[in-house]
């Protein structure tokens, strides 16, 4: 990166980093409703607005359902919008998530990943966002505060691309990222403006070009609407990668788009991880590599759209794949695991797989746990019988 492009470094929490990203993206409308561990995002934005550092409509809505409804109303008028939520709040806006994606409004929302009740708990896992898998939202997961900032800026670029025109949910782990302070580069405004021009759309109410939006569709047409959503999600795969490349060219930071591989080129055993645990896994990979183990990490950034094509190829390259799920789909297995497995077992693949359920409701995923996961992958490859779904660190077995 050239001297000219050096950005000022700040010591920010993940929530604060998101707030700075939002400020740089210059949304017209923000709908704010607080919920732990997201609250700092909308608080910090309200400070920016109060200090006139942001020029936007800041709406204090009465619920998350209203937050998403208000965002949709604003987007319907052609406004760039932002909102943030978490856990029960995300569930409460569930109905509106479908309205927004089906109406193709490119709203960006940050979800601070937190488990869902009961048992009630404010700590992090992915059960909130993964439960909204089929809401038609693009879902991106980030590893640290810097990526939270950068992915939020990228999210607008992806959402507002005319081939996509879908809402994007950026997910950052509750507390582990939202409340941890790290060194973060805040890009300068001119560079963000270069990357992200102001929002223009034809998908809005316009006196000069009257049309209906958010209407009902009869059985004769509903399938075609769904097909277009499907196509838009498929198109988003390329756009997510392209947005990351363009971002990297301007800001010097690349994240790999849909996925990032870490030391996978010659790996026998790969762990698939989403969110902050990807960082900790890097350390474990480095340590095991020093011991001669051929291990690697696949950091899954985009859960929807899902990089099926990547995993189809991975299944032919490695001997065993473990998937860390910070969730569980009761009656089956971890949700991410199902998707990865479905793609891995493309014809020709001989790969073995294990699902590691870990980090539920804020339970720490330690380096020791991650080391054990790699050991289990090696063991299953060597013929040991290991139950497919493993609850990591369970108090009893």
């Amino acid at each position, binding site marked *: 990166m050239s001297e000219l492009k050096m950005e000022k470094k700040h*010591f920010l929490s993940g929530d604060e980093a998101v707030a700075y990203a939002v400020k740089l993206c210059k949304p017209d409308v923000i709908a704010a409703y607080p919920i732990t561990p997201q609250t700092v995002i909308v608080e910090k934005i309200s400070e920016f607005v109060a200090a006139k550092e942001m020029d936007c409509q800041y709406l204090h809505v009465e619920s998350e359902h209203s937050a998403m409804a208000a965002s949709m109303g604003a987007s319907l008028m052609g406004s760039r919008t932002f909102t943030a939520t978490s856990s029960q709040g995300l569930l409460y806006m569930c109905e509106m998530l479908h309205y927004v994606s089906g109406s193709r409004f490119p709203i960006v929302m940050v979800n601070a990943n937190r488990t869902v009740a009961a048992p009630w708990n404010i700590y992090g896992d992915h059960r909130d966002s993964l439960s909204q898998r089929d809401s038609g939202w693009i879902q991106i997961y980030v590893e640290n505060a810097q990526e939270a900032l950068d992915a939020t800026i990228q999210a607008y670029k992806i959402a507002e691309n005319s081939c996509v025109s879908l809402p994007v949910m950026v997910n950052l782990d509750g507390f582990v990222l939202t409340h941890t302070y790290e060194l973060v580069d805040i890009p300068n405004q001119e560079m963000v403006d270069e990357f992200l021009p102001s929002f223009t759309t034809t998908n809005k109410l316009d006196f000069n070009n009257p049309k209906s939006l958010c209407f009902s569709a009869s059985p004769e047409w509903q399938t075609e609407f769904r097909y277009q959503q499907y196509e838009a999600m498929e198109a988003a795969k390329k756009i997510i990668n392209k947005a990351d490349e363009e971002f990297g060219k301007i800001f010097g930071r690349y994240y790999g788009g849909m996925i990032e591989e870490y030391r996978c080129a010659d790996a026998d055993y790969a762990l698939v991880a989403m969110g*902050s645990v990807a960082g900790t896994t890097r350390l474990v990979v480095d340590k095991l590599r020093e011991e001669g183990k051929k291990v690697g990490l696949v950091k899954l950034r985009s859960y929807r759209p899902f990089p099926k094509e990547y995993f189809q190829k991975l299944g032919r390259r490695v001997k065993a794949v473990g998937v860390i799920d910070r969730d569980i789909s009761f009656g089956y297995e971890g949700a991410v695991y199902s998707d990865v497995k479905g793609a891995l077992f493309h014809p020709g693949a001989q790969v073995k797989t294990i699902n590691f359920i870990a980090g539920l409701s804020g339970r720490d995923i330690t380096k020791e746990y991650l080391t054990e996961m790699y050991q289990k992958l090696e063991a299953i490859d060597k013929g040991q019988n290991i139950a497919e779904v493993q609850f990591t660190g369970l108090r009893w077995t």
Partner: protein
Amino acid sequence: MIEIRWHGRGGHGGFTAARLLGLAASVYGGNYSQAFPSFGPERRGAPVLGFTRIDIEQINDHSQVYNCDYVIVLDETLLDTVDVTKGIKEEGILLINSAKSSEQFNFPNNIKIRTFNATKTALEVLGVPITNTVMLGAVVAITGVVKLEAVKSAIDEFMAPELRDKNKKAVEVAYNSIKGVN
């Protein structure tokens, strides 16, 4: 990587100290750092934790801190209920805010202990028994993980204007006091 755990009670500013140290070490010290509180609801007076990680390389570890190079105790009464020695590394140091000398404490495993009467210094300099920045000064003097000037810059960036001068003084008094006896 250096890992530091701060023990305080809700309202003592233990996490503020953890964060000031992280800010000083990174933005003003040229290192990478992380600072985080014990996650969850905060209650005034309840035992709480703060953590600071400092490294010359980017810190990718997002698991919790289990082994500490330094443990800082802002309130001596915590020793009755909390095992502050947990996870201290062999060469680690336990720094306690206390009027007692380190010899008057008796912990197993020959843990290296330092004490500093931060409450006395806080009352003299700040006029209130808030010991977080005083203890921060002591940490800087004992550990050398950051320069005193970096901590002062962090206070200038982080604290409200009316608090800056007296807290910088608090840090400096503690620092000089410890450096003087070394």
